[in-house]
């Protein structure tokens, strides 16, 4: 019993501060950082694909109803475009 208590106590000490951001929040923040209106903290309906040039294309809907396309090129440049 004592060992379990000590082990629990020690494991509690070892737990790192978990503040990982969800992808939905991450994308919403990205849209806002590129000076577009999103109307909330997290997006929905995320779809991901790759275009012919090898860029990563993400489409997501903001809480305000606007849908955006985020293109991440192979050199890491990011572009946000409103779709509607």
């Amino acid at each position: 019993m004592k060992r379990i208590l000590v082990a629990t106590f020690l494991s509690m000490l070892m737990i790192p501060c978990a503040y990982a951001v969800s992808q939905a929040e991450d994308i919403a923040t990205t849209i806002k950082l590129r000076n577009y209106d999103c109307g909330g903290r997290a997006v929905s309906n995320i779809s991901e694909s790759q275009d012919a040039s090898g860029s990563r294309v993400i489409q997501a809907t903001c809480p305000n109803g606007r849908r955006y396309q985020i293109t991440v090129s192979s050199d890491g440049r990011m572009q946000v475009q409103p779709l509607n």
Partner: protein
Amino acid sequence: MKQLNASIASLIVMLCAGVAFVVPQCACGQSNGAQASEAVSSDVVKEHTPAAERKDMRERHISKMPTTSHNKKVAVDIKTLEARLKHTDAIGFFTKLAIRSNIIDLMNKIKQYRKKSMLKAKIKEIRTSFDGLILKIVALLEEDPKLSRDLYVGRESIWKSLLEVKA
């Protein structure tokens, strides 16, 4: 049982020591840190010395503390800040890419204006957008207050390094 109690007690003592060590450092803003250490020192001093002497000691203690006023230059290692920003968990991958893209856009603007010899005329405008970007990043980094504070404190150095980028 005694050993167990002793080990738990020592762990608690270590934890308390850690908290006491961390709290003044984490206090955001220079004035808060100064206030925290002043409060700690005044509590110790209060019990043993008369009021006038206490005031004098406090003043001496404050004058000895390293000051980081706004007009004083703050040495910041930009490479380290960049690495810390890259590895922080407070913001996501896409946000980091967006910050990077915003900084590249700002650098391109500076290069463009420099080519056209319009940099001096447009410096206020660029500085305003730089300040806006820094404030946005600082706000986003609320889960990593130390990095957030360091970025804010080192904004002048970052600005200078941005201006140093050759066309």
